[in-house]
């Protein structure tokens, strides 16, 4: 086929679609759209691609899985289970693993992809947080992202429960106990959810529908909205020479990003496949079907449930008491419901909390370097420390076995650390950020240390500093800092309320955020530093003002 006939054929196909769908307008709008490039923007892509992998492998699994808790006698190829009373869900999952060629691989890809999905969403969220990508106009997309992470955890837990094996059944039992602990309605909720007593036979088919229909539909809708907003608002970009708040610098969707992002999908799919081919995950045949009587030592949920399990493990029993003839199980309610709630709500509201402190209502399309917003960065580090400590607590038994330590000592230590370490990390992170900003100032004012020592004629030694070129310098001076709200009286001289002066709380929050700050170097300061070679005073001169 010659080039001209190919072009003609393509032309007639394009004409066919355009006359029916107006496709040319879409191509014109989308194909040359510019997207900025940075490795950290791939984290969200990893999440999106693992979701697609989950859909593909999930459809395969649903062709063989039987969502029923009905009793059956296992008579498959795995000898240790033969003649055991198990549920159809469990027997069919073992069947997928051993009787369906490639079935074990598909199960493992599905499970690994689920772990990667939640992990990628979480790290993507960290990236968005630390770079301030959640600021106006992207607050709504931040909220959608938070909801997606939460739903991802729920969806993962339900999928993990579907095989009805001993380990996941123990997890459901814990979930049912959390529901039972809810005041007033707990018993009723539990009986409605399980169709009677735990475990019953209704739960597996019910969560199957939620896992394969309800939640995936919500995911598709939310991910769709997430991406549509991304296109409408255009992607944020890191600051740099030539990048401004009013432009986007990068590569066009077609062909560069089509190849890069499309190729990256295959890379993610490939790597997850390799992991699943070589690393066993969730060997349910070794656990056996669910039975309320036995249990294995070292029971662990999937990683994303670890923080909640850890919170439950850290708690003491004092929270449970009887009052007015009813049982109040705060030993369960606090770690399993209150703490996750207290972690989630400020996270979702964070864009507005920070906006309240800055009073900044402008659109922001240039990302922050985390060091340039020390308080936010320190708050984030504090939150992550809290989360990781809970997560570690979820593995206290494994740590005790591996490290040969007393589990009681580990738990007691973690109970103390959970209160002490997060604030310490907050302070240290903030100091590190301020220090890095001062270092940036130093570099701008005095240039890069070249490690070349020169002796002058008079015998004086000094190190040669090489001034930064204007592009490198711009990276270090482009940001702006916020000042705390002025301590103005809230009424002016005539006793009229001063608009926008802010309440006391608002001023306090603003002070908390911006009292300590390091201003970027100004041209005047740079000129002064060049004039005076020993101008170290200039580094601190502006950084210390409050």
């Amino acid at each position, binding site marked *: 086929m010659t080039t001209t006939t190919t072009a003609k054929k393509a032309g007639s196909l394009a004409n066919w679609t355009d006359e029916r769908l107006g496709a040319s307008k879409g191509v014109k709008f989308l194909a040359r759209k510019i997207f900025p490039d940075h490795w950290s923007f791939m984290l969200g892509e990893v999440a999106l691609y693992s979701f697609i992998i989950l859909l593909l492998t999930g459809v395969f699994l649903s062709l063989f899985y039987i969502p029923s808790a009905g009793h059956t006698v296992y008579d498959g190829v795995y000898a240790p289970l033969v003649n055991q009373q198990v549920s159809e869900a469990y027997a069919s999952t073992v069947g997928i693993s051993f009787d369906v060629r490639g079935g074990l691989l598909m199960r493992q890809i599905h499970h690994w992809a689920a772990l990667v999905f939640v992990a990628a969403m979480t790290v993507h969220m960290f990236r968005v947080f630390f770079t301030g990508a959640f600021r106006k106009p992207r607050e709504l997309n931040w909220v959608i992202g938070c909801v997606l992470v939460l739903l991802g955890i729920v969806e993962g837990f339900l999928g993990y429960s579907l095989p009805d094996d001993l380990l996941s059944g123990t997890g459901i039992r814990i979930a049912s106990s959390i529901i039972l602990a809810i005041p007033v309605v707990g018993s009723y909720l539990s009986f409605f959810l399980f169709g009677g007593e735990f475990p019953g036979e209704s739960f597996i088919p019910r969560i199957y529908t939620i896992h394969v229909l309800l939640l995936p539909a919500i995911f598709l809708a939310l991910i769709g909205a997430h991406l549509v907003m991304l296109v409408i608002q255009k992607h944020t970009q890191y600051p740099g020479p030539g990048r401004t708040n009013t432009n986007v610098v990068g590569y066009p969707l077609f062909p560069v990003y089509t190849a890069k992002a499309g190729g990256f999908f295959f890379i993610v799919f490939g790597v997850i496949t390799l992991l699943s081919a070589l690393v066993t995950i969730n060997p349910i045949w070794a656990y056996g079907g669910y039975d309320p009587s036995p249990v294995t030592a070292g029971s662990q949920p999937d990683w994303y449930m670890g923080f909640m399990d850890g919170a439950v493990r850290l708690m003491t029993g004092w929270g449970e008491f009887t009052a007015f003839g009813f049982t109040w199980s705060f030993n369960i309610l606090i770690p399993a419901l209150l703490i996750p709630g207290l972690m989630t709500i400020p996270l979702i509201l964070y864009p507005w909390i920070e906006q309240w402190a800055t009073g900044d209502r402008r659109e922001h399309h240039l990302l922050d370097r985390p060091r340039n917003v020390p308080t936010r960065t320190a708050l984030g580090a504090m939150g992550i420390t809290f989360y990781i400590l809970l997560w570690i607590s979820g593995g206290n038994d494994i740590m005790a076995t591996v490290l040969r330590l007393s589990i009681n000592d580990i738990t007691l230590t973690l109970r103390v650390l959970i209160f002490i370490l997060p604030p310490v990390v907050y302070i240290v992170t903030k100091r590190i950020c301020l220090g890095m900003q001062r270092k940036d100032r130093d570099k701008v004012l005095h240039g890069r240390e070249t490690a070349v020592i020169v002796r002058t004629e008079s015998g004086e030694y000094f190190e040669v500093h090489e001034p930064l070129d204007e592009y490198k310098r711009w990276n270090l001076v*482009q940001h702006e800092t916020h000042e705390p709200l002025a301590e103005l009286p809230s009424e002016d001289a005539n006793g009229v309320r001063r608009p926008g002066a802010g309440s006391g709380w608002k001023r306090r929050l603003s002070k908390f955020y911006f009292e300590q700050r390091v201003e970027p170097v100004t*041209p005047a300061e740079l000129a002064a530093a060049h004039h005076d070679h020993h101008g170290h005073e200039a580094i601190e001169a502006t950084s210390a003002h409050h």
Partner: protein
Amino acid sequence: MSENQNLPDVAREDGHGTVAVSQRFDNPGLPPHRQRVTDIDAAAAKRAERQVATLFGLSGVGTILALVAYFALPYDLEAGYIEHLGQVKLSNALIGVGLFIALFGIGAGAVHWAKTLMPDEERVEERHELRGSDEDRAAALGILSEGAEEAGLGRRPLIRNSLIGAMALAPLPAVVLLRDLGPMPEAKLSETIWKKGTPLVRDPEGGKLKASDLVNGSVVHVLPEGLEETEHPLNEKAKAPVLLIRLDPELLDEASSAGAYEGIVAYSKICTHMGCPVALYEQQTHHLLCPCHQSTFDLRQNCKVIFGPARRPLPQLPITVDEEGYLVAADGFHEAVGPSFWERG
């Protein structure tokens, strides 16, 4: 380049000063573009082209490997041979490695193609403010208020209010329809099938026990006889498991001695915290440990909680022997077993 391009210098609330614009550096603009080897050297470009094609070719090889592994590896498993686990894993591993090469080859080839041969000069696109122009906003507002006026929303409050009322009531059937999701709890959470005279049988193998079957320090998992004949055996099994332990009678305190038989005590195995089986027995310390959240119960203190998130001791099942000498329950549990619930009291 204008001075204020980095952020629009919009007048802001009182007290929110930022560094004055004149004190800032100017954005130097995009640095000069540096060409890649493949941009200037035709041989390098040709080499990159071959590399991309090789990666795509490798992907094809991976697909063939996956197919060969699928069809050629033995998978004719017969029941009863645990060695087949190795075959299963080999088959899955090779299909997986083949798929990896097939997928990764496409991905790596496409990315390499984009990075070496597609244009790498960054382009600039202007952003536009997201809000509509003042005219657009005024027009939109006009349309909405005109529409509301046409519908008579303001003039006919009767229609508006009755619609709100109807909409508020309409979801009620949806809530009511969920009623049959499950029965009422009644007293089910507080009851087990243990009652006076129920024999203790081994879990899982079955078989009644005599006191002489237990030596000092031994622990036996037991269930009530007749569990399988109940209407919902699994539901009963979620409440009924019991641990039977024989201790030196002198180690038992007064309360636990009352329900013991010759130093043999029986306690509910269902954790009072979250219902996991408290299956770990430390012979030296006489502690029972729950593997889920590490609640620890002391057998010498009537299974009082000595560590962890549980609050209540494991309920004791009073035991005795029948006329044939088999261990039986002297009575049912005196309280609800398992995790707490609101009505437990």
